[in-house]
Structure formats: structure tokens, C-alpha cells
């Protein structure tokens, strides 16, 4: 009898990973810290205010909407903090604070909670919040009103993002910041997108911690590089400029890798990342907007279920059934 007590009977799963949602989200927050610090350096304390407002409103919106829908409280998983941070990183530092809060409410209530909460959102909530703000307040969200950084060559130039200073016919404009400035982040733009260095640090941390797989960011950025090499006919300066500038880094590392809205399968990830890159390049080169990362990720988010269906891995030893055409005809 004593032998039997050693064995407990329980329902599967029997082996659980030590990973928790809270742990993963905490890692993402840690990875986002360098970009936040960079933004405060570049744009001053106003950047901190935008970050604080969108994070606080996001958490509050999550709490209140879960309460209103009489669902289990989920603010403990920190996902609302990540959404708030990512949204703030996608806004210019001079945005009115109530707009940042409104963006958080849209992201959390409309895009996340109305579709069922964490793991159920159909597109990346922070990006959807940014796009809705962009189409609602073009005066505040367009590159023309972005503030100048407090240092670097662009410090005297309000109203130009690096992405507005490069085009297919002329390449990179002369007054554009140097590649080193783009890498460090002392340029104009949204809070979190300016410093490629800080974003890469965060990305490397996430890959080492195995929070994200390197497939999506590497393929996304790599494919953008390939498309741009072709588009700019081997003008490597312009290509480097396109990769370091705009929202590509933050998009590829933090937005496109969102678990809920990116494919699970390896091939699916590759297809998804190439699709993101293609749409990004098309919008940047031929669209009326200077930047296309957010739209491209949202469009590919919506296609994810189809990409997963197409790239469903074949089980070992699986033989494809022949289509019985005659039966289908009758």
C-alpha cells in the first residue's frame, strides 16, 4: 500500500514549463528599458510623461474593462504595461497627453479586451492604437509636427523624420543625420524608434532569454535590406539609412514578434516576416506616408491565421490523401 502513495493520479499536462506570462512580460519590459532611457535623453522629460501616461492609462483601462465585463482580473500579468510602453514608444514626445491616454484606451479596451483579452487580440493592440491616433489626429501624429531632438545635427530641424529625408530618385538628402546618429538615436521620430542601439540591446536580451525567436526580426530586417538594395540599386548608404531609420527596429523586434499575432510555425514566421518587409518597403518607397512599418505589421497580423494554415507542418510519416475528384464532382 505504501508503494501506491508515491504515485499521484492527475490530469495532463504533467510536465509544465517554469515560464509564466508575467515572467515573459517582465522580460519584455526589461528589454524595452534601454529604448526608454534613450528617448528621455533625446527628447527630455516630456518623453517620460508620455510613457507614464500611456502605461498608467493602459493598466487602468485593463483593470476597469475586466471589472466591467465581470471577468477574472489580468493586470497582474503585466501585459497591459507592455502595451502601454509600446504605444508610448510609437508616439512623438510632443503629443498632447490626453491623446496618449486615449490611444491606450483604444489599444486595451477596443483591440484587446473587446476581443477577449490577452491572447485573443486580432492585431497588435499598441500598433492599432497608434494607427487609430494617426488617422484621427493627423496634425499631431504626422512627421511634420515631430519635435526636434535636443542634440545632433537635426536639433535645429523640426518637422522632418529621417524617413522623410530619403527617397528613390535622390537617395539620402544632404541635411540628413549621419548613420552614427541614427544608430545612437539622436534624430527626430517617435519616442522608442530613434535609437537603433537601445532597441538592438533589448532584442538581444529577448533572444538570449528565449522570449522571442530570432527568425522574425532577422528575416524582417534582412528582407527589408534585400528589397532596399534592389530598389536603391546598391546605394549601400541609403540601404543602411533605411534599416536604421524609422520604426523598423522597434517593429521587427518588439511588435512583429507578439505571440498572439505572429505565426507559430517556423515557415509561417518566415513568410510573415517577408510579407511585413515587402509591405514596409512598398509603403516607404511608393506610398504617400514616409513610414510603413505599423501598417505592414497590422496587415500581416490579419493574415496570420491563413499563413499558419498554409504552413502547417506535416506530421512524421504522413501521407497526403489523394483528392477524390470524381466524388467531388458528383
Amino acid at each position, binding site marked *: 500500500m505504501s508503494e501506491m502513495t508515491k504515485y499521484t493520479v492527475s490530469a495532463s499536462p504533467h510536465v509544465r514549463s517554469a515560464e509564466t506570462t508575467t515572467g515573459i512580460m517582465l522580460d519584455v519590459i526589461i528589454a524595452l528599458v534601454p529604448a526608454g532611457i534613450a528617448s528621455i535623453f533625446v527628447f527630455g522629460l516630456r518623453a517620460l510623461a508620455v510613457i507614464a501616461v500611456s502605461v498608467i492609462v493602459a493598466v487602468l483601462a485593463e483593470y476597469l474593462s475586466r471589472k466591467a465585463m465581470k471577468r477574472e482580473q489580468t493586470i497582474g500579468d503585466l501585459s497591459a504595461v507592455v502595451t502601454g510602453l509600446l504605444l508610448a514608444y510609437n508616439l512623438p514626445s510632443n503629443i*498632447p497627453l*490626453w491623446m496618449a491616454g*486615449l490611444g491606450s484606451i483604444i489599444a486595451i479596451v477596443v483591440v484587446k479586451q473587446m476581443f477577449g483579452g490577452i491572447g485573443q487580440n486580432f492585431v497588435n493592440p499598441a500598433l492599432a492604437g497608434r494607427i*487609430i491616433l494617426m*488617422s*484621427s*489626429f493627423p*496634425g499631431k501624429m504626422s512627421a511634420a509636427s515631430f519635435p526636434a531632438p535636443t542634440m545632433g545635427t537635426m536639433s535645429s530641424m523640426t518637422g522632418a523624420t529621417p524617413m522623410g529625408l530619403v527617397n528613390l530618385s535622390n537617395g539620402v538628402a544632404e541635411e540628413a543625420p549621419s548613420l552614427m546618429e541614427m544608430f545612437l538615436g539622436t534624430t527626430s521620430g517617435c519616442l522608442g524608434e530613434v535609437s537603433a542601439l537601445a532597441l538592438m540591446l533589448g532584442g538581444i536580451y529577448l533572444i538570449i532569454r528565449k522570449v522571442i525567436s530570432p527568425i522574425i526580426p532577422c528575416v524582417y530586417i534582412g528582407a527589408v535590406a534585400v528589397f532596399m538594395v534592389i530598389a536603391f540599386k546598391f546605394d549601400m548608404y541609403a540601404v543602411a539609412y533605411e534599416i536604421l531609420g524609422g520604426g523598423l527596429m522597434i517593429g521587427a523586434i518588439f511588435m512583429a514578434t507578439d505571440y498572439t499575432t505572429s505565426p507559430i510555425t517556423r515557415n509561417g514566421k518566415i513568410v510573415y516576416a517577408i510579407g511585413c518587409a515587402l509591405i514596409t518597403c512598398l509603403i516607404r518607397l511608393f506610398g504617400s506616408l514616409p513610414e510603413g512599418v505599423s501598417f505592414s505589421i497590422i496587415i500581416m497580423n490579419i493574415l496570420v491565421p491563413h499563413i499558419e494554415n498554409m504552413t502547417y507542418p506535416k506530421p512524421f510519416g504522413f501521407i497526403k490523401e489523394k483528392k477524390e475528384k470524381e466524388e467531388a464532382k458528383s
Partner: protein
Amino acid sequence: MAEKKTLGQEFTKGLVKENPVLRLVLGTCPTLAVTTSVENAIGMGIAATIVLICSNVVISALRKVIPSKVRIPCFIVIIAAFVTMVQLFVKAFAPALDASLGIFLPLIVVNCIILGRAEAFASKNAVVASAVDGVGMGIGFTIALVLMAAIREFFGSFNLTLKVLGFGTQVSLADPLASIGIEPILIFILAPGGFFVFGLLIALANKIAEDKGLARAELKSCAECPMAASCAVKAAGEECAE
């Protein structure tokens, strides 16, 4: 056939219980397209109501003459005749409305509410009942349009143009709100905002309907359709056309 209703019931059912937009989910195309201002919504509502009443009356009067196999083309011809008349009137007396409604004015010809009422009601009810049904459904359509337009216009521009055919006034909160730094949320009067507000209104209507024990506006089968009792398609045992 449903149990006999009084004329009063035929009128009121279109307002709320069988509201064409929020309960029957018909006529969604103009609902999404023209509800960018209350003025447009009222204009569209009136135009559609006039066409609906006239076509219901004529189709009901001719219901024994029209052969059932070619009834749809016959209905369309009758509806198109009235739409042309209304369109000429609007062009002549309210050119501004004509300009803002654009293609959606002639598109009343294929408005599902009008064809739906012709098929489901006017083609098998007496003239007076059909006219009353048309008035009720038309007003129900207008109410839904105005409700949606009021929400979209208010948030999208902080204005409310309470005008009927050019008469009336515009209430504007844009300036006082701008002075404290609050800008209108433009997306409400763009297409995505239209879909969003429409979705929320349908959700609200479903919630109210569920609380009252009615079917939701969600067509899984013919039997769940609020028009099931009077629908000719269901009676014929065919697939629901909607």
C-alpha cells in the same frame, strides 16, 4: 403567416422591434456610407422613406397581377421609377444634399430594406397595411441613421448639424473644446469609425433584445430571423436569401 396585426402594430414594429438596420441588419451600405453628418442621415432617411412608402403601395396594389416568377424584376422596376423621381426632386430642390449623398441616392434602388419589405410584406398584404408598414420601416431606418450619424458627427467633428433640407441649425462644440486643447477624433467620420460605431450599436441592440428574450440580430438559420414569421422564402422551404 403571422397572426393579424393592427395597423398600429404594423407601424410601431418598424421603429424598434423590427428596426430595419439594427434588428433586421438590412440597408447597411447607406447606413455606413452617409452617416457622417446628421443632415445627410436625415436626408437619406427621408428619401428612402418616400421611396419605401410609394413602392410598398404600388407593389401591394399590383400584388395579384405580378407573376411570382418575375416578381423581383417587377419590384425593381417599380422601385427604380420612384427612386428616379426622388432623385430628380432632390437634384432640383436640395442640390447640396444631392452632392453629399452622391451615388448613395440612386443606390436606394437596390436598398435591401425596400426590396425586403416589397418581398416580405407588400407583396402579400393590403394596400393600407403596406403603406403603414412603409412609414414605420422608413422612420425606423431614419432613426437608426440619425442615431449613428449623431454619434459619428459629434465625436468626429464636435458638431451636430440639426438640419432638414437646409433648414435648421448647427450645434458646435469644436471651438470651446479646441480652446482647452481637445481635438475631434477624426476616425469617427472615416470609414473604420463607421464600422466601429455600427458594430457597437448592433451589440447594444442585441444586448437589449436578449434581455427581453428576443432573438439576436445574427442570422444562423432562417428560423432565427426576426422576419421569419412573414418571410416568403422560408414558407417556400428554400434557403434564406439574406
